């Protein structure tokens, strides 16, 4: 079975580590512990409803408002990306645009999906922007909460399905 590399990108503190740990370990912590470099999680899963087994290495990448040269090296060979934004921020989207643009430019044709995170404490103030991003990157967006677990697994599964559908 092929093991797919999935990278999780976004500004710092938006909840990348929390989303991954919710998905892989089903746990959550209030405490912010910044990620240094990369943290890899190997995870085997079954896609709900289809009985398809998948094997993933999820890359938790140190956050930044703008992707650095090192970020570009980290994403080499990725089959898909989760772009995370913190919906409690004044402007959650500019860091998401930058990360998504960088990923698409480096790996054209590879799917991504958008995690509109901290949905337990925030409402999306600019749904038009979400619609524009979805159209621009031909992707799905999920109002996730690492705290409650809302939409977290469905989001990773959606990305895995897109990867399989594109025969990557």
């Amino acid at each position, binding site marked *: 079975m092929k093991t797919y590399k999935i990278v999780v990108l976004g500004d710092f503190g938006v909840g990348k580590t929390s989303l991954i740990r919710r998905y892989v370990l089903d746990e959550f912590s209030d405490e*912010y512990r910044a990620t240094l470099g990369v943290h890899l999680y190997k995870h085997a899963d079954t896609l709900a409803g289809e009985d398809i087994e998948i094997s993933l290495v999820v890359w938790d990448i140190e956050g930044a408002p703008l992707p650095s040269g090192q970020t570009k090296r980290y994403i080499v*060979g990725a089959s898909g990306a989760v772009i995370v934004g913190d919906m409690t921020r004044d402007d959650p989207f500019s860091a998401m645009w930058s990360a998504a643009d960088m990923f698409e430019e480096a790996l054209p044709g590879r799917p991504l999906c958008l995690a509109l995170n901290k949905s337990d404490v925030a409402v999306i103030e600019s749904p038009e922007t979400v619609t524009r991003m979805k159209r621009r990157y031909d992707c799905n967006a999920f109002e996730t909460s690492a705290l409650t677990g809302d939409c977290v697994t469905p989001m990773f599964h959606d990305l895995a399905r897109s990867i399989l559908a594109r025969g990557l």
Partner: protein
Amino acid sequence: MTELHSDLVLDALGLLAVRLDDDLIVREVCGTFLTVPTGTDMREFMPALYGLEDALHAPDAYLTMPFVQIGNDRDEPVALTVRRDPDSGVLWLFLRDVREESEMQRQLVQNHNSLSLAQAELVKARNAAQKADQAKTAFLANVSHELRTPLHVIIGGSSILSKPRDTPLDPQEVTDYALDMHESGVLLLQLVDDLIDLSRSETGNLILYEERCDLTEITRAITALCEDIPEARHTTLQCEVPPHPVWMVADARRIKQILLNLISNAIKAVANLNGGEVTVTLDPALPSLTVADNGPGMSEEEIAIARQPFGQPRAGVRSKGTGLGLSIVDRLVTLHGGEIVFDTAPGKGLAATITFDPERSRNDSKPSQNVS
């Protein structure tokens, strides 16, 4: 160097060197700080290599990552370097123990990020405070304006009435001045009452005195009272209530206030119409109360403005009243755990429906003293 010697040197540096074949299988290991058996798939040991197979086939393959942590617990980080020796074509992978430097680095990143996040929070809070401040200033300007108009009427009228004159005013004129002054006084009192309600609800001091009350009775009484509003002269006012009491735990005085506000708004909306109609309906099911009119209706934006204190949805069209009615209704309904929905469109009339929490009309629900 003998094999033993190279192991010693590599261990002293906290380094592991692994020779890989083109399928990324471990062929040779130097150093002992980690145990990697030969013959294993290096990707299983270092999952960072998944996805990099193609990149590593390049004759000049070279990649390096300063901090890599693996696994589901707080594993120790390593620095990873993979390079193909351009002369021999052999693929080498190096792992270095970076436990000490990584904790220091991570603290730096943590401090930097936490500070940035705190700063962003502060900016956000400052912007919110500025917005609230602007809203307060606008509110104060509105209050002063609303106070000034009736005060002018009272001061102007009383000064005319009190001045000695050569030809005395005729009795009708005196009555007119007195009536105007009285009306302005009533409006001022209403304005002050509304301001007190509003400020209490903002500071959480608006207290509901709850009891079991009969919505049928309240709806009937308030509709009847509204028939006496002067603007209602040419309006058909209908009251549709069930033929039995509808009990609910609520502050009866506040429910009356809500209804009075909504019905008098509706009456004002149709006052200039031929065939204006206002219907007040009590649906015992939830229960819910609806006040509907066949007036000009409002757009979504107009409704949003009307719900603001002093909001005048129609530019240039000032309605009579304090301009605070709807924002107070909003708060009173919320305090009762209810919800208000406006069904309206320009030219389509307006129906305001308040639904209450069904818990409140259960037989065994108990009145409580509720502070906002």
